[in-house]
């Protein structure tokens, strides 16, 4: 469709990857705000983090689409297979708090690395926006670290965290997958860290986060690259639009109202 033709440059693909990650993570957290946190404070935290992610997504989509109407079309009228959401961002088990917390931390580490790559070499708007993401997601990272610390205090909690880690860690290799990562930071004025280099940085940072909580990393950066290959062989590659059935269902549900009447307006 027309939106796809318009996003073919490395720069636009990179921004769309970023936007599609933030949109899905924001939607997931928003969908459980209010009836999920163990206390009022946690519900405020979930709602705030959801707003941050959705705000980033709105800004990134707006970067690609000049009017609010075009942003709506980009978000609501693309098929799930046109979404470039990474497997890590798309992973979601809302009934499993350890999973939500581990995912929150692993995603924050990946998101901060992406923003740092843009910040370090970029200039102008990309650099300024990266600064916004660095400011916001650093708070999220602290929050999920605190939760993992709490969960790690009991044997049951530790086992649940380890379980979630086994599932989530291998997905992170794909986050840095694809040509967008090689070419786009250069297109928006940044350096071009290779996918291997970014996986190395991520494994080191997430591993150190886990280490301070007394948890072991399931694999190193080479292991992550292998896992990304294995997932691709199983037909899963978020950056190519090959998503889990759960994410496809979530996107279909999120877009159903708009699709039923694209002229609909809230309020």
């Amino acid at each position, binding site marked *: 469709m027309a939106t796809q033709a318009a996003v073919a440059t490395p720069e636009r693909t990179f921004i769309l990857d970023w936007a599609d990650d933030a949109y899905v993570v*924001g939607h997931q957290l928003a969908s459980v705000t209010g009836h999920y946190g163990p206390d009022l*404070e946690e519900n*405020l*935290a979930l*709602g*705030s*983090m*959801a*707003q*941050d*992610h*959705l*705000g*980033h997504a*709105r*800004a990134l989509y*707006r*970067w690609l689409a000049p009017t609010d109407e075009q942003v709506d079309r980009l978000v609501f009228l693309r098929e799930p297979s046109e979404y470039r959401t990474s497997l890590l961002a798309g992973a979601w088990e809302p009934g499993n708090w350890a999973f939500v917390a581990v995912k929150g931390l692993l995603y924050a580490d990946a998101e*901060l690395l992406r923003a*740092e790559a843009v*910040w*370090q*070499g*970029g*200039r102008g*708007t990309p*650099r*300024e*926006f*990266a*600064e*916004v993401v*660095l*400011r*916001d997601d*650093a*708070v999220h*990272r*602290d*929050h999920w670290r605190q939760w993992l610390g709490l969960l790690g205090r009991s044997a049951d909690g530790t086992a649940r965290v380890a379980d979630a880690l086994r599932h989530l860690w291998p997905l992170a290799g794909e986050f840095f997958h694809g040509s967008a990562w090689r070419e786009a930071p250069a297109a928006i004025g940044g*350096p071009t860290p290779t996918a291997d280099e970014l996986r190395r940085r991520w494994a080191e940072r997430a591993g150190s986060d886990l280490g301070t909580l007394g948890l072991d990393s399931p694999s190193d950066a080479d292991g992550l690259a292998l896992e990304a290959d294995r997932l691709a062989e199983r037909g899963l590659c978020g950056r190519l639009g090959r998503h889990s059935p759960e994410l496809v269902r979530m996107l279909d549900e999120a877009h159903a109202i708009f699709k039923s009447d694209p002229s609909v307006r809230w309020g």
Partner: protein
Amino acid sequence: MMDAVGAVTQQDVWRALAEVEDPELPIGIVDLGIVEAVSMGANGRLVVELIPTFSGCPALEVIRERVISRLRELGVADAEVRWKLGPAWDPGRISAAGRAQLREHGITGGDPAAAAARSGARCPFCDSDDTERASGFGPALCRVVYRCRCCRNVFEGMKRPGTLIRLANAAPRADQ
């Protein structure tokens, strides 16, 4: 740079913008530090550039409408509000008058004197800096919750950038 739209000067525009209140804080948008620039577009349209305190702020649309409608009262028929993607807002942008207004409403923010306090916040009720952060997430995206150990009150503060961005800012810039 804009000189005037009809009889309306740049100064008139800034004065009018100063009267536009933030919908979620008892403070004007100029005092809040979110007005970046006022300029004249090529087509004779007045362009107001704003930066959001936080990109997910639900009040952006309301602020846009308030600005447009206030400028219309001033006689500017063709105005556009552009929300910029950055730079990251921080409470240091709040004016001294704005900080005083917030304090009156039990909210602390951008107070340079409070940097000495471990939590970074001074209690708006008893002025003590013996405070602690109770939660990093407050009733709105731009605020966090503090507790005063001295007068035992709970109060809100404007969210400040975390450690990581401060470290990042200390690193050399690639474009310098």
